[in-house]
């Protein structure tokens, strides 16, 4: 029963989880919003209209001090924020999985060396480093995503490693090794599918952290000005008088969007973890 | 439906205990119409194959089953039905009047708390004893079971299975309960150690005068240490009586087959396989594997008391 649960049955059960369903629906909506921004947004976010307009019939969320329509900014902003989030998360998960697999599968010296490197990376204070690098280098959004990815792979690596260590000792892996299959082949066909359920929640949480981090950096004014991410919108609000003057529509909606997106990602991640726990319990 | 030999000094009377579980695969009848009684100071062994429902019966009596279990029947202890009591009332009885020793000692103990503290816990919780005094008492109890004061302050992960088992026994006996339920006390121990541990346990049991419900799949162990025995099959009790008598003259076909499995009787396996608990056979549950099966066995047999002129015996079989 355990092998079956690991190798295939699990995905069907996840649809029963409420948190997964809500999270997934929200996730999809945001994704669609980002993909079809051009169709959904009422105006071009860079087009200028009458500034300082409060929410009204023509501009549902009003306009900011430059006369940009905030709703359009919001919809297009999803692209930037999601891009940063996904980019960083994909990179971090990729590196983390590689490191974790190698360390867990080959053990010995490889393991020691890789874990040593992981420990060093773990101790680097991430936000300050990103801030310092952003200040020195003034990077574009893509570079920010890459930097975040390069810093965050550690927690994925740890988790992948411990799961790999576990899976490695299982019967079918031992059998494959004794039959003479090459290591890369075993890793890809036997080990990897079973680790997916551990990687997924980490991936989702990485997206969440990356989004918040990108928003934070943009808030400090270090982000990519050319791309209007949600964080940049809040930064604008803070720096250009939106906050002091009480123009809540400038920053409330992007903030809510970030929160909601992170929420749905966290919900999905939690659903995965609950699922994993159930499988473990039944074993 | 009561045990005839229980007319004098019964301490725990289980009547018509039926336990069902709602699972994703269907409704599992783990125990059906189980009745037995435990007399004062005696040892009753509940024997059967793994998965026949013995542990479920024990947990049901103590109301320790998970929420998806439905329990019917009665378990009378000290004049009141345990199954009707609230969680709070049960919490006062557990550990103090009825104690249970779980099957997996190494997992049943909290890995990050010292042994002595865990053994002392019932004293602190039930009698509000001071930490110092309760630990002293715990150390004494552990000493009687062969664990010195150095070991008493170690952690469960440093102990072997046998040592953990003894720690659990100490925990269960520290408040001198009236009934002790031991679930597979020989689990995971080598033969020599089993003997030693059981002897220690019986010694202390005699001293404090409690009754023991010994749950085991090891027939030889049951024979050695119990006065009476109840044989379970597929959630039902099929035969009850004095242990020695059952060994000499087993009445139920299952009991006979079970004894035949023993090495000293030839190692004959029982034909067929254990029935499913979700779709059990109609009528007598042993019918598919019984050499004496007949037409009437399509109907569930009733219990015959005093079968074959043995007034202590009860059998659930149409042969009698």
């Amino acid at each position, binding site marked *: 029963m355990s092998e079956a649960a690991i190798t295939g049955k699990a995905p069907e059960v996840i649809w029963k989880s409420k948190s997964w369903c809500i999270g997934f629906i929200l996730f999809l909506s945001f994704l669609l919003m980002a993909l079809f921004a051009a169709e959904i947004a009422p105006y071009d976010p860079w087009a200028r209209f009458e500034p300082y307009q409060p929410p009204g019939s023509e501009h549902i969320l009003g306009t900011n001090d430059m006369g940009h329509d905030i709703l359009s900014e919001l919809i297009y902003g999803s692209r930037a924020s999601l891009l940063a989030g996904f980019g960083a998360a994909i990179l971090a998960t990729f590196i983390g999985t590689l490191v974790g697999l190698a360390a867990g599968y080959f053990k010995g010296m490889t393991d020691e060396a890789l874990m040593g490197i992981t420990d*060093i990376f773990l101790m680097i*204070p991430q936000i*300050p480093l990103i801030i310092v690098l952003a200040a020195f280098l003034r990077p574009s959004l893509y570079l920010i995503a890459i930097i975040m990815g390069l810093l965050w792979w550690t927690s994925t690596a740890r988790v992948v490693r411990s799961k790999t260590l576990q899976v490695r000792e299982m019967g079918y892996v031992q059998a494959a090794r004794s039959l003479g299959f090459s290591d890369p082949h075993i890793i890809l066909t036997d080990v990897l599918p079973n680790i997916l359920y551990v990687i997924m929640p980490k991936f989702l949480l990485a997206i969440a952290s990356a989004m918040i981090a990108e928003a934070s950096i943009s808030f400090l004014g270090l982000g990519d000005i050319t791309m209007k991410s949600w964080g940049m919108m809040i930064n604008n609000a803070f720096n250009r008088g939106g906050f002091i003057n009480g123009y809540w529509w400038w920053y409330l909606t992007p*903030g809510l969007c970030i*929160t*909601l997106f992170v929420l749905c990602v966290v919900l999905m991640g939690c659903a995965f973890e609950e699922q994993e726990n159930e499988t473990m319990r039944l074993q | 439906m009561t045990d005839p030999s229980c007319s004098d000094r019964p301490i725990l009377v289980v009547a018509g205990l039926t336990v069902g579980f709602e699972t994703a695969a269907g409704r599992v009848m783990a125990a059906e119409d189980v009745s037995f009684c435990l007399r004062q100071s005696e040892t009753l062994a509940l024997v059967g194959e793994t998965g026949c429902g013995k542990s479920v019966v024990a947990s049901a009596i103590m109301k320790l089953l998970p929420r998806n279990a439905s329990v019917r029947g009665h378990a009378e202890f000290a004049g009141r039905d345990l199954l009707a009591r609230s969680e709070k009332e049960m919490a006062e009885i557990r550990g103090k009047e009825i104690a249970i020793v779980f099957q997996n000692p190494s997992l*049943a103990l*909290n890995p990050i708390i010292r042994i002595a503290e865990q053994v002392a*816990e019932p004293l602190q919780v039930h009698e509000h004893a001071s930490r110092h005094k309760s630990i002293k008492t715990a150390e004494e109890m552990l000493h009687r079971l062969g664990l010195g004061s150095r070991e008493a302050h170690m952690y469960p992960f440093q102990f072997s299975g046998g040592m953990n088992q003894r720690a659990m026994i100490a925990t269960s006996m520290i408040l001198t309960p009236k009934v002790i339920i031991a679930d597979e006390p020989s689990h995971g121990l080598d033969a020599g150690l089993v003997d030693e541990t059981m002897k220690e346990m019986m010694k202390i049991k005699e001293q404090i005068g409690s009754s023991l419900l010994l749950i085991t799949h090891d027939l030889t162990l049951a024979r050695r240490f119990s006065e009476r025995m109840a044989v379970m099959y597929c959630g039902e009790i099929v035969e009850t009586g004095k242990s020695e008598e059952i060994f000499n003259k087993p009445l139920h076909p299952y009991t006979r087959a079970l004894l035949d499995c023993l090495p000293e009787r030839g190692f004959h396996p029982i034909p067929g396989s254990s029935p499913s608990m979700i779709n059990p056979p109609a009528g007598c549950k042993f019918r598919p594997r019984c050499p004496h099966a007949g037409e009437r066995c399509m109907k569930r047999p009733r219990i015959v008391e005093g079968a074959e002129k043995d007034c202590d015996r009860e059998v659930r079989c149409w042969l009698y």
Partner: protein
Amino acid sequence: MVALFIIISMNFIIPRAMPGDELTNLLGEDVTITDSTIVELRHEMGLDRTWTEQYLDYWWKILHLDLGYSFHLHSDVSRIIVSRIKWTLLLALPSILLGAMAGTVLGALAGWDGRNAGRKIQTLLLLAVYCTPPYFLCLLALYLFSFKLDLFPMKGFYITGSTLDIAHHVFLPILVMTLFSLSRNYMIMRGSVIQEKSSLYAAFARAKGLYNEEILFRHVFRNALLPIITLLAMDFGFMLSGALFIEIVFSMNGMGNLIYDSLLARDYPVLQGSFLIITIMAVSANMLADLLYSRFDPRVKW
């Protein structure tokens, strides 16, 4: 310890390896100086010596707690940092401690029995807090309580300097920080307790006669706490970065704001000095985490 060495060295290498003139990188872009002064400064800062000599000099200075001089703020970096760090500690320490205590206890209770509606709402609310970007919540809190309701002052640590005044000023920031710390601890503790409560030792504790919350607080709590201990120790190490955004939004003059201002002014000596301090704190916190964990989980010592 090796990590500490590496990171401090990195701090040395980065400004020198960065694009642009070393002197600018080390002094900051906001500084205007004449050409002759440049030569003098180069000599004083040792930039005309070999890298090895500079490196050794760097270490010497650090061990003497000389972190350089900020031309922008006209003061020794070390003195600036010391004066600011105590404010950050005032903000961060109570928040971490309160958030830890409240978060773990509430989270444990929620994980133990989350069936009633009140608990569910509580979990949902704290989940929302957990997902909100920190500074956004600060903005909202500031807007609501200071702007609209005028209950609390909007910026700074004090006006009159009296204890009550300081308390009045730090109340809101500490509240928000505590809320964040609480929400994270809550979510993790809740998950941990949910996992642990189905274990056999919890069942055995119940069989011994422990009733409900007794099982939780005598047994499950300790076991469920283990994964959080490491996190809490790390919190202390990353205290400064945690307080960063709160200080910026609430305009409080702690280390966080120092970093932000020096960032805008390109005051690199201060940045480097602050970064160094942060790193040292992070590494010490890591060591503290390991130490603390082994004290709580006896299995680890072996």
